[in-house]
Structure formats: C-alpha cells, structure tokens
C-alpha cells in the first residue's frame, strides 16, 4: 500500500503558506454541525480542543486524570524553542528547521519540520497573550537561553517549569471554551477503543474510571493526543498513568505505527534505588554545562568519591570526545554511561550510576553562582536521594524519556485511517530518530494551535452534509461488545500475579534487549520472551475488585496488555532496521570508534507497520524520505 504523505508541491519555504491559501474550509454555520473528539489534554490535546472549539466545532475532550491540567506535559522543565531571533545571533526559521532535521539524524520529513519551525514564532505570541509568565529581561522583553549542542540562543523558558506554564496556558484556553460550551470536558474518562465505520473513524468507546461505566461517543473526526509510550519500559521519566492504549487500539483498527523503535534515552536521570522503584526522575540537561561526568578507572571500586584521587578518575566523555566533552548529544552520553557501567566501573550501591561532579565548577565560580544556576535542581536531587550535590557528586544514569515513534500521519496530521488524527508526542512525524531539547513543547503546541485547525478542515469539508453520527450502529455495538469482553476476560483470569509483576518483567526485557544498545540476537530473544509474557499475563494475572467501580488495578491491566503487544512490535522494528541512527543503536552497525553508522541508501525511510491480526506478523510499509533541501551528513562530535 502506498503511503501518501500529501506534502504540498513547491519550494520548501512556501509549502505551508500555499497550503493554507488553498485548503478547503468549513464555513462557520457548518462548523456547528460537526463533532470532534479529542483524546488527551496535554499540550497537543488542550490546544487542539480549545482552538477547534473557538472555531465553532462541537468538541468533546477526554482525559484519564481528574483534571485536564495534570497531563504529563506539565513536567517538562527546560524550555521551548522558537525562531524569533530576538538575540540577533543568526537564528532563522531555516536554521531551526535544519537543526531539527539534522538532530533527528535525517529520519523525518522536511515539509513537516519546516512548518514546525515556521509556526514556532506564533506559539510564543499566543502563550504570552494567554498570560504565560515567561522569564523577562530588565527591559520587560522576553529572555532567551541556549540549549544543548546548538549555536544560537532560541529557547524561551519559565524558570525550571516551562512545561507546566505552557500547559496551564492551553488549559486556560480550554476552560474558556468549556464555559462557552463549545467544548464538553470528560475528566477521569479513558478511551479504550476506537470505532471505525465504513472505513472512517466515527467515534470512541470510553470507560468512566469512577463508576466503570462504558460509554459511546460519536464524532466526525477523532484526534488522539495521548503522549508517548515510554512506560513500555516500566521505568521511564513518564508519569505513572502514561500509556499507549489509545494509539495502540487505533493501530489495531488499521492506523499504521511509524518507527516504533525510535525511543529517546536521556543521559541525566536519578538512578534506580531499589526493587520498588516506580519511575525515574529527570535532571535537566543544563546540568551538563557545569558538571563533569566520571567513574573510577578500576573495576569494582567501592571507595567514596572523595577518596578517589584525580589520577584514578576516568572523565570518559572528555576522554572520548575532546571537542564536545560533557556536552555531547543525549544518545552519545547515554551509551557512554552504559558502557562504563557494563565494564564494572559504575558507582553507587547498584553499580548502575556514574558521577556528575560539580566540585570543580564550585571551586571556579563559587557556591553562590552555582546555586543561582541550579538551585532548584540541587534541591530536588537532595529531596529524592538525601545527598547534597554541593558536597558530594551527583549520581546519574540514563533513562527512557521520550518516544519519537508513534502513529504514522501525513502532512495533515491524519493517520492512514480517514478521520483519525494524531498530534503531539503520540505521532511519529517531526523528530526523526532523535529529538532535540526544547522541541517537544514546540511540537505539541504547533500541532494543536496552528496546524490541526487548518488541516482538519480539509477533511471535514466533506462531512458537512453527513449529519450527526449515531451511536446505535453495528460498528458501535461491536466495539462496545469487544470492550466488555476484554474487561470481563481480564477480571475473570483471577490468577496469582499482580499487573505490576508483568509490567516490571516486560520493562526489564525491553530495557536489557531493546534499550540503549541493540543487536539481532538480543532482539530475537526479546520477541520470544515477550510472547511468553503475553501468554502468562492472559492466564495468570490477578485483578482484585470489580469492573464497576474505581479500580486502578484494572486500569493498569488494560494498559499493560497493550504495552506487551507494543513491546513486541518495537523489537521487530529494531530488528529490521539494520543501521544505527539517533536513539536506535545496533551494535553490529557502528563505526570503528563506536559511533552510530547510518545506512542512508537502504534505510532513509519511515517504517510504518500494519497490524494484520492476533498473532499474525505485522506488515511493513515504507515511506521513502526525500530530502530536497538538506544534505545528509554523518554526525561527529570528536
């Protein structure tokens, strides 16, 4: 099946404006007759729901938390990129586009990424107008800072909680539409199935998480904005509730999954402390501006860091990558940390950590300066570990953080299923094989505020005479029946092991064999192990309570069932992609000095997987990536 990305023709810099001038519109009187469902209320979902409501569509928005403001977008720390060039340092739309394409290791679409850079400037305007309290200079104008490995200062921020403030901006816009009654908001409701009728997405089946009630909701279009699937690894920087269920159900109903193995591992997170660990906490990338990463030169060295003299320390990033040192990109830093720990030189009780040491920076700049730069981060670290980074080195270890993969979408952000859209982290499109810092926030808001409201009109212009979609059709009956059957089956297994037991087991296989360093043997083994976990789960999981009440164990079970299937697809995708690029590192495909070896001749495409049925191998479709504007180069940081 041919994948049509629907990128408009014409010069790169004009594609989006030409598109906007010629896209089909829905006139205001007709918008009132059209229903849209938005699943997820993070940056992408809240901005989309609010914008579509303002336009006059009738919107229903759903989130599983008790408030739309608790989506995991809230936790983003660093900042949001935009090509405003306020610093007069040479930034431009083209430069932001180029940095993003190159950072993605040339595995994303030029057209989509250039558009992202173009609308980035509008995002800042919108957020400021909403009252987002960005950092300001004394002039009263917006402040900027630099971010990892980029040569211009283009990141706008609100201290260390830019994500929270941007989300609250979108949430406030959403609230206004709720008051205006253009958006109906369903909190503590989780989507558990999509409804496809005559090949089009026509609605969803949703579970009320308080009462267990199964509900039908119909619409002319469904927008998924449900975030990343990092929790397939069990331990990640994601929130506990983050899951893949919405996009996985869409995938099983026909939406292709793009590049599922492209997952991002962030090098500086607080290491695992014990068996009970429930998630990993991110320490901002900015710390690597002043901290020095090191381990002992000898294996099994259990001495306290203060007792290890300079000559016996291996500042391995500085040693291996002289020109970038501690500021190498995330994928490089993560792999180097793993290498040191696998070599038996890791630190801490578990040996799965490396030091990030501020002693030299404190000696050079003084404690006050370091405190002004990182105070809140040091406080956060001490709350969690009980250790003081001013007097002893921080311990850090890489952790799963972001997923570049997701549902395949075209230029309109529509999946290959008509009427089903995917926005924000849950789609595959803009970040290729590696996402740059401060660009996730940019993408979520770009999709929701400035892309979808235009592109969705193109499809909906064909729906103005359809009339209200009915929920009493065969398609809805079938979908609801299947949901009830799945829930009943889960509740009746009454086995011996908890849901978390299986989630942990899956996570360990994924981390060990589909994590930072992958190889054919490990991936094939992982696929077999995951198949076994699936069988065991469906015969031995134990879920207490009933389905008709608030039941967190049942909620987790539905999500873990989908993670198990996704895990298998990720390993399959990683196995077939015989090259290393961005966050996907195959040990068999590396340069002589251990760097990722891309194979542009054979793998410059998006791997879009089609679900073929229970226990059937998935079918691969390829969208060949065409680069008209940029020249593909090998990344080097020496």
């Amino acid at each position, binding site marked *: 099946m041919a994948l049509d990305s629907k990128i408009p023709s014409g010069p790169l810099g004009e594609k989006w404006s030409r598109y906007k001038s010629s896209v089909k519109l829905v006139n205001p009187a007709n918008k009132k007759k059209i229903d849209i469902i938005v699943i997820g209320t993070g940056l992408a979902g809240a901005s989309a729901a609010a914008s579509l409501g303002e336009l006059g569509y009738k919107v229903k928005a759903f989130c599983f938390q008790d408030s739309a403001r608790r989506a995991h977008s809230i936790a983003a720390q660093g900042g949001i990129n935009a090509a405003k060039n306020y610093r007069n340092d040479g930034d431009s739309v083209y430069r932001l586009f180029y940095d993003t394409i190159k950072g993605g290791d040339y595995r994303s679409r030029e057209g989509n990424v250039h558009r992202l850079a173009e609308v980035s400037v509008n995002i800042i305007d919108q957020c400021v*107008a909403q009252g987002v309290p960005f950092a300001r200079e004394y002039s009263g104008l917006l402040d900027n800072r630099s971010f990892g490995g980029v040569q211009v200062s283009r990141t706008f921020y609100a201290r260390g909680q830019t994500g929270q403030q941007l989300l609250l901006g979108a949430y406030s816009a959403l609230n206004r539409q709720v008051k205006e009654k253009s958006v109906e908001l369903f909190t503590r409701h989780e989507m558990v199935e999509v409804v496809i009728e005559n090949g089009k997405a026509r609605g969803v089946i949703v579970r009320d998480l308080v009462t267990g009630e199964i509900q039908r909701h119909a619409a002319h279009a469904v927008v998924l904005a449900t975030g990343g699937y990092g929790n397939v690894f069990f331990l990640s920087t994601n929130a506990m509730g983050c899951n893949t269920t919405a996009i996985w159900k869409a995938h099983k109903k026909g939406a292709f999954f793009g590049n599922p193995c492209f997952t991002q591992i962030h090098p500086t997170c607080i290491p695992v402390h014990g068996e009970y660990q429930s998630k990993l906490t991110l320490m901002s990338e900015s710390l690597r501006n002043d901290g020095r990463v090191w381990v002992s030169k000898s294996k099994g060295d259990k001495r306290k860091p203060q007792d290890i003299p300079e000559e016996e320390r291996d500042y391995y990033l500085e040693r291996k990558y002289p020109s970038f040192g501690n500021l190498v990109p995330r994928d490089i830093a993560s792999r180097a940390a793993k290498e040191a720990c696998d070599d038996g030189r890791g630190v801490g009780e578990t040996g799965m950590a490396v030091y990030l040491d501020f002693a030299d920076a404190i000696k050079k700049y003084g404690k006050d300066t370091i405190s002004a730069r990182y105070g809140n981060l040091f406080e956060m670290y001490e709350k969690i570990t009980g250790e003081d980074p001013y007097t002893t080195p921080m311990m850090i270890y890489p952790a799963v953080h972001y997923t570049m993969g997701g549902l395949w979408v075209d230029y309109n952000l529509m999946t290959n299923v008509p009427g089903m859209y995917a926005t924000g982290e849950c789609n595959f499109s803009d970040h290729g094989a590696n996402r740059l810092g401060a660009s996730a926030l940019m993408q979520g808001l770009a999709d929701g505020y*400035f892309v979808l409201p235009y592109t969705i009109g193109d499809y909906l212009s064909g729906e103005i005479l359809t009339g209200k979609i009915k929920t009493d059709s065969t398609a809805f009956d079938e979908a609801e029946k299947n949901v009830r059957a799945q829930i009943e089956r889960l509740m009746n297994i009454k086995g011996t092991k908890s849901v978390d037991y299986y989630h942990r087991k899956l996570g360990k296989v994924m981390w060990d064999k589909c994590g930072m360093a992958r190889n054919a043997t490990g991936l094939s083994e992982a696929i077999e192990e995951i198949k076994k976990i699936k069988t065991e789960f469906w015969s031995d999981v134990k879920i207490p309570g009933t389905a008709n009440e608030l039941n967190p164990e049942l909620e987790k079970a539905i999500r873990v069932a989908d993670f198990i299937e996704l895990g298998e697809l990720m390993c399959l995708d990683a196995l077939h992609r015989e090259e290393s690029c961005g966050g996907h590192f195959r040990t068999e495909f590396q340069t002589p000095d251990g760097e990722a070896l891309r194979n542009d001749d054979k793998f410059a495409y998006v791997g879009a997987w089609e679900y073929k049925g229970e226990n059937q191998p998935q079918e691969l479709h390829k969208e060949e990536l065409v680069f008209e504007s940029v020249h593909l180069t090998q990344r080097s940081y020496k």
Partner: protein
Amino acid sequence: MRLTLKVWRQKNKSDKGGFETYQLNNVDTHASFLEMMDVLNEQLVNENKIPVAFDHDCREGICGACSMVINGRPHGPLKGTTTCQLHMRHFHDGETVTIEPFRANAFPVLKDLVVDRSSFERIQQAGGYISVGTGAAPEANNIPVNKVDAEKAFDAAACIGCGACVAACKNGSAMLFVGAKVSQYALLPQGHPERNERVLNMVAVMDEEGFGGCTNTGACEAECPKEISVANIMRLNREYISAKLSVEKE
C-alpha cells in the same frame, strides 16, 4: 524499617468509611512515600484484598494529583514537598503513620484516598483565563512586562492545583488557590482588560462550591508544597474590593 499504617478506607462516595490498620515490614528508607504505598498494595493484592486507591501521576511534585494527609498534615511533615516527593528516611522504625484523604466540604471522597476536586475546575472555568483566541495574539514583545511583576506572576503561577491549602485550612477555604490565579493575571498587563469580571466570577463560583471563608490563619501557606504566599490572598482581596467598587451597574 517497620511501620504501622492506619489508612482511611472508603468503598465509594456514600460509604461511611473507616480506618484500617496494616503492618509493613522491610520498608526501604530510600523509597518514596508512594512507592511505600505501592509495596503495601502489592502485599494486599497478594493477600487477595482490595488495594488502597489513591491519586498519583507524575511522582515528581508537579502535576498536583497526589493528595494524602499524612500524620495530620497535607503532603506530610516536610516543607515545600508533595506527597510523592516525601521519602521514607523521614520516618522512624516502628512509627505509626496515619494516612487520610484531603478532607473538605468541596472535596467529596470518591474512594479510599481519592477525592473529587472538580470544584477547582469549575472555579477556573469561571474566569481563570485571558480571552484571547488562537491566532489573535500580537507580537510577543509588543507589551513589555516589568521584570519584578513577571517574577511575582511566575511565583503565583507555580500553583499546582493540588488542594493542600483547602485541606489544611480549618475553614476549608480556597482563597490561596483562587488568589494565586487571580494574582498571576493581575500582575501581567495581558490580564488587565478582564481583571474585574475575572475576580468577581471566580469568587462567586468559589462561594457556590462550598469553600469556607478566610480568617487569616496562614495554614495554607505553611502546607503549600509550592510555598505559595498569602500575599496572593491579599492581592485577591484587593482585586475583589476594587472590582466591586469599579464595576458599573446598569
């Protein structure tokens, strides 16, 4: 270490509820409070009992979901710390820890430690926004914002909407929560055109929802995990009085 946990259990909204006592051995001091609850729940599932339901999500102190009253204090004993950021090294071997939901007239209990905070949502929907549609925004730097005001607006905007202030207050007042949002927009020029309507509408809904009045106790600020200042209540009062006096009646 070993702990005795007295946990509030309640089957649903209409159930009367009561305390259950559990023994937990081998609690790791490095574990977070919620990880300790996970261990309790794993134990309960293995014993074929119903695990304790509680709200949680980010486990890093920013989403505002977690909401436990621990030994009588919302979010537990530490200053500026959410339930999920609290770690077991702050408890002693053999201690009895009492765990309850955030209690308030406007926060009905749904189950065990899970409460319904939708009253907060209705307050926000009444006016916690600036009425600018997508695409209508002027160039970001057109309106400079005094740096000191910008910092104060940020301090107010740091509220995570957890409701600890309400749970801490003997009157169950939401003045700190409403004050924080009203302050953020009052300190920014973008918020000025709708300043009066905003505060009047939000306070009206706050009152309708059954929150109590403010009697200047200050427990809210003391318990707030983000250390939001009662100066925001002062600002709220000032905005409210100013609005009452300025709004022209037909």
